[in-house]
């Protein structure tokens, strides 16, 4: 069961591009872009509960896969997932015991991620929308969707983190 966290992140990464796109397809008359960032939400939680270095490595590896599988420019997601995965690592017990604070950090991290990716895509010439349009059609829906997703998975994931910590403590005692 050492691999439970990588499996969770990999699963969320896969369903972003497959199940989500099949069951909630966009259409021509939709103006908002609902971007799933499920794997990133999980990475922020891992970074908070397990430590910033965990967040960094999960972020870099997931970002690398995102770059290679979904686009031909390599580095954008690797850098931003890694950086924000690390920066979200508020590994204090005062934070960990307050779900509201954890969710708030997750939302701030998400907003940072979307903005960072927006600026990097503008820099590489992929995106060409104004910041205002980006904020209303992409940032806001993303915060709503992934915030809701974060609320759903936070409590099951806290159980998993507690379980992992207990196992670690038991192993230390043995």
């Amino acid at each position: 069961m050492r691999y439970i966290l990588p499996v969770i992140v990999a699963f969320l990464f896969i369903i972003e591009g497959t199940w989500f796109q099949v069951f909630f397809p966009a259409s021509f008359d939709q103006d908002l872009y609902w971007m799933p960032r499920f794997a990133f939400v999980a990475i922020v939680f891992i970074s908070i509960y397990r430590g910033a270095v965990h967040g960094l490595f999960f972020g870099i590896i997931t970002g690398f896969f995102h770059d290679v599988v979904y686009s031909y420019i390599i580095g954008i997601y690797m850098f931003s997932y890694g950086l924000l995965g690390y920066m979200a690592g508020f590994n204090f017990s005062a934070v960990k015991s307050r779900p509201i604070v954890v969710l708030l950090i997750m939302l701030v991290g998400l907003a940072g991620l979307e903005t960072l990716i927006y600026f990097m895509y503008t820099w590489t010439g992929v995106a060409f929308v104004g910041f205002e349009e980006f904020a209303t059609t992409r940032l806001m829906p993303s915060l709503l969707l992934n915030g809701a997703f974060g609320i759903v998975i936070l409590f099951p994931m806290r159980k998993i983190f507690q379980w992992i910590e207990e196992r670690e403590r038991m192993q230390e005692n043995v």
Partner: protein
Amino acid sequence: MPHFFSNKRLILLMVGIIVLVILVGLTMREREQATIPEQIVQDSVGAVQSVFQRPAYFVRGIYDDFIHILNVHEENERLKEHLNDYAMLRSELDGLREENESLTSMYDGMESLSSFTSIPALVIERQPDRWTETIGINRGTQHGVEADMAVITEEGLIGRVQYTSAFTSQIQLLSDGEQTNRVSAKVAVEDDEPAIGFIEGWDHEQDLLIMQKVDSENELEVGQFVSTSGLGGLFPADLPIGEIVGVEIDEYGLTQNAYIQPSADYYNINHVMVIDREQGNLEGIQEDFENLQEEQEEEEESEGSGE
């Protein structure tokens, strides 16, 4: 974010940014085939994605069927109306087909611009962040897919193969606004030569394709159908693209732009066909050209020796 801006971490951040710039710079240009490590990642993730995607399509299919059952009466009425035209179209089609066969048989071994073979494929992923509009399919170079091939659904053209790997490939949809995504298209004009133009660009506000560089002498009208012209060399002719919904003269007044409502749905795609254009035709023309050149050279030589 404990002590984020300490010296060691700042240096690591700088190194990260430098690596980012190098990686982006190296991979940004258009590439036909992914590098070997990328291919391994793409193909193995692709295999997992196919496993996820098949049951999802199954469930989605059941849902769609359910919706269909609710609409079945309405649809039946509509189909009955269509059926009246069907007999007439059928007889017309038979006549045209015979005519076409007799005409094509007159050309010795010439394949038409629209001949192609197709490779069916399953859509295994779609770019979730939607900054670029791409989808992935479970067919790659091993199945004969090559970069720049046309990709269609039963409703019409949806895009081109952007790059390939051994068992998967990435499709760039026409709704991706990149300028390299350019298709030579034609508009059928009654009793006249078809109007030729280029599909380039995507109008993000109205979600319409933009067809540019159409000669302003051609009379474009709302409701005309647009299809590929086969002149670009990559795509075969007569793949449906969409219907004109708006026309405007471009800024210099020499050409006109048409706005096109795509006939295919770019969002709800399960199965696609990759179109492999039969190149025999083009090679034949090239050979003809070479023969012609040789003949001319020989003539010149003989003329030269005659003097």
